[in-house]
């Protein structure tokens, strides 16, 4: 409990820093939101009137203070341009982005874990060499190119998947969740980078684990190889994999910004990107806040997962 409480305090500090920094950075960006809204023919009077209407004349700390006051109660303000409440706009987009990331992670692990195990069990075997070459090859293709390539292959040449957009599976509130088929290509685009990293990591750890004394012991006892690998070697070897999954959420979030724009998906990343162009500060601010919370919470969950996986961590923390 103490451990969780300490983590929550850390979370609060991180969020305070992130939100203040985004607020400041956005306001340092060149370009005036009133100009973005009114267009180049805006008169000075119209700009001033609009600035007043949007409270842009208040000093920065005052605006930030007001925003934090609202954010604490769940009111993230209203978009300057669409006039939609920010919380509502985010609620509409978030489920799809989460789905995209989960699906990407699932695909990545579904490929990386079996390949990692086989490659680790037989280093330099043909599976190891082929898988390494292919995953590294894919890793070196940037998301935006890979996405276009996948669209050409799987939506234009052969047509099992949609080129863009989603088919709605079900809704959560106003947010939509896409059918697995319609989100598969974007998720795959996002997954490819993760795959290579996860596979290499698992492979290395399995190789190391297999050299441990207790594995030699198990071998000496005549346990079948498969059982040693899956029951005794896999779990201790997933430690760094899990850490990396948590940390890689950052890369996934960044990647989802690109992938959502490429595949024209109505997710959070697309919302933030278009809002930046329109200088819709409050939307960007709210979006970034949600991303930051998500990132911190996921890594917090990863921390807790260590304890589940490794009794030594649990005990050490209980002692501390």
């Amino acid at each position, binding site marked *: 409990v103490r451990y969780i409480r300490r983590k929550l305090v850390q979370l609060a500090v991180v969020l305070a820093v992130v939100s203040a920094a985004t607020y400041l950075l956005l306001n340092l960006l060149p370009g005036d939101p009133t100009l973005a809204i009114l267009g180049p023919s805006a008169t000075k009077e119209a700009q001033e009137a609009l600035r007043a209407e949007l409270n842009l004349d208040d000093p920065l700390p005052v605006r930030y203070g007001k925003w934090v006051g609202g954010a604490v109660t769940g009111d993230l303000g209203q978009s300057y341009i669409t006039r939609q409440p920010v919380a509502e706009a985010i609620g509409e987009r978030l489920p799809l982005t989460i789905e995209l990331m989960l699906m990407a992670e699932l695909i990545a692990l579904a490929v990386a874990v079996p390949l990692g195990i086989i490659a680790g069990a037989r280093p330099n075997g043909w599976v190891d060499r082929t898988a390494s070459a292919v995953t590294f090859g894919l890793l070196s293709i940037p998301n935006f190119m890979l996405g276009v390539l996948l669209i050409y292959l799987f939506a234009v040449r052969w047509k099992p998947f*949609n080129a863009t957009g989603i088919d709605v599976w079900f809704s959560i509130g106003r947010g939509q969740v896409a059918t697995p088929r319609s989100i598969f290509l974007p998720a795959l685009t996002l997954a490819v980078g993760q795959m290579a990293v996860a596979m290499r990591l698992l492979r290395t750890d399995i190789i190391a684990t297999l050299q441990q004394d207790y594995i030699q012991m198990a071998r000496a006892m005549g346990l079948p190889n498969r059982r040693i690998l899956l029951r005794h070697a896999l779990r201790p070897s997933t430690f760094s994999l899990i850490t990396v999954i948590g940390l890689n959420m950052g890369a996934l979030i960044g990647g989802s910004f690109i992938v959502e724009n490429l595949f024209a998906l109505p997710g959070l990343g697309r919302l933030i990107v278009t809002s930046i162009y329109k200088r819709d500060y409050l939307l960007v601010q709210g979006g970034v806040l949600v991303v930051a919370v998500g990132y911190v919470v996921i890594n917090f969950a990863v921390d807790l997962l260590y304890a589940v996986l490794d009794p030594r961590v649990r005990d050490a923390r209980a002692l501390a």
Partner: protein
Amino acid sequence: VRRLRFRFHRPVALGLAAVLVLAACGGGGGGGEGEEGGGATRPTQEEGTPKPGGKITVALDAETDGWDPSQNRWAVAGYYVANAVFDPLVKQDAEGKWHPYLAESLTPNADFTSWTIKLRPNVRFHNGEPLNADAVVLHFDRLKKSFLTGQAFTPMERWEKVDDLTVKVTMNTPWSTFPYYLSRQGGFVPAPAQYNASDADRTGKPIGTGPYMFKEWVRDDHLTVVKNPNYWRKGLPYLDEITFRPIPDQQVRLAAVQSGDVQVMMTSDDQSIIAARKDRSLRLREEKTDEPAFFMINTAKEPLSDVRLRRALALATDQAQLNVLVGGGIRELATSPWSKGSKWYAESGWPTKPDPEEARKLVEEYKKEKGITGPVKITYEDVPTPTARQIAELVKTMWEKVGFSVSQKSVEQTEHINNALLGNYDIVTWRQFGSADPDYDYIWWHSSTAKPIGDLALNFARNKDPQIDAALDAARRTSDDAERKRQYAIVAKRLAVDVPYLWQTFTIWGIVSSPKVKGLYAGTLPDGSPLPPIHAGEVWLNQAWLEQ
């Protein structure tokens, strides 16, 4: 430059009024249908008889802020949706002439200081409210009150209901082109219920009189409209449903049509057009626009305030080479704001062939006079896109060869526009002047809008030329097109002499569609006059039909 297109287009198109993209209607399709009472019809020869029914998906290049014509900004993509849900009071035909559309007639007084708008009877909004003078008066109230549209309608002083279907608008100055302004955003009349709805519904749930009724909108994903069974143009529309999908990536948008996800798409990307030309399974229709891409020069700022240096830049720039290297060479080279197909086109004397020798001489002459040793330093500004980067590399080389030293910077779109407004630049990449009528470019070229550096000026280049002023004013005073053409020829020639703009190429719009979609390019007005097949990237979907 490519990104600049729609990003810049949007502010401009709206801000100053309908200005840039006036005649927006696209060709519609197919079928003969007429005004109530049976106006003229125009059957489509090659496409057969329109059949009702079916659904299509249309891919657009961008999402739109919202659907309140007084508050939101509609670029090309916005008009696709607006034309489906709303009707404009006025529409332009293929020749660019205005016709009453949702209005039955618009009548000016002798000196154009007042206009009487008579509305079509028995037209209802999708929610059942009648289209009447009250609805139009409310619409004008909102337009005038809006920061966005208010300025465009500055001459409007009073607007009042005369009877249930008549509104009289009084101007504070003669305004003969008022109807054109009603063919764009400011002429699309929403139901009073939409104007009176909550902020989110006002911009998010459009209620118009148009051929399609709004069904749902998931921002950045799709907007769906369904057939309006009570549309005032009897027999229209043919399709049961249209889904609009913004797909920002050019390549992916084309792939979406090739994969069959989407049946119609718009693009202004040369590479996509080249790819679509090769794909025999699709239909492609191209439109050469009158919207030139160019480099804009700040004529009020040293050193390019010296016209010799501007001429040197023009002579150093190899237009044809840029066209080939950047766009695949498919565009027409610009020599003035008007392309060869335009009725306003005239020989301007612009040098399309580079002459680096002559350019170098001009720079040397300048340097000698000013006692400068070393190259003349200028800053080139663009926006951060891959195409802009390519262009920057090329022009830097061309200009440095003749004695300039070019430092290059890329800025985000809003700042790019801001810098132009305030005169905070030497030379920038730009795209503009795509309006249907040259009079809409008055404000960009007249010296009255060329303010000093640091003040907001719509004459971004700050070029002051009494001959241009005189020609623009003279053209505005007359309605004789031959005379206007003479005046605009003077403008074209003077722009080639003053060199505030280094002309490059004209944008090409392409509409790529499935061959099953018919009637995209043969739309008509209720009186039977044809609509332009495509205008500034817009096609008229209201007479489109699907071969089933």
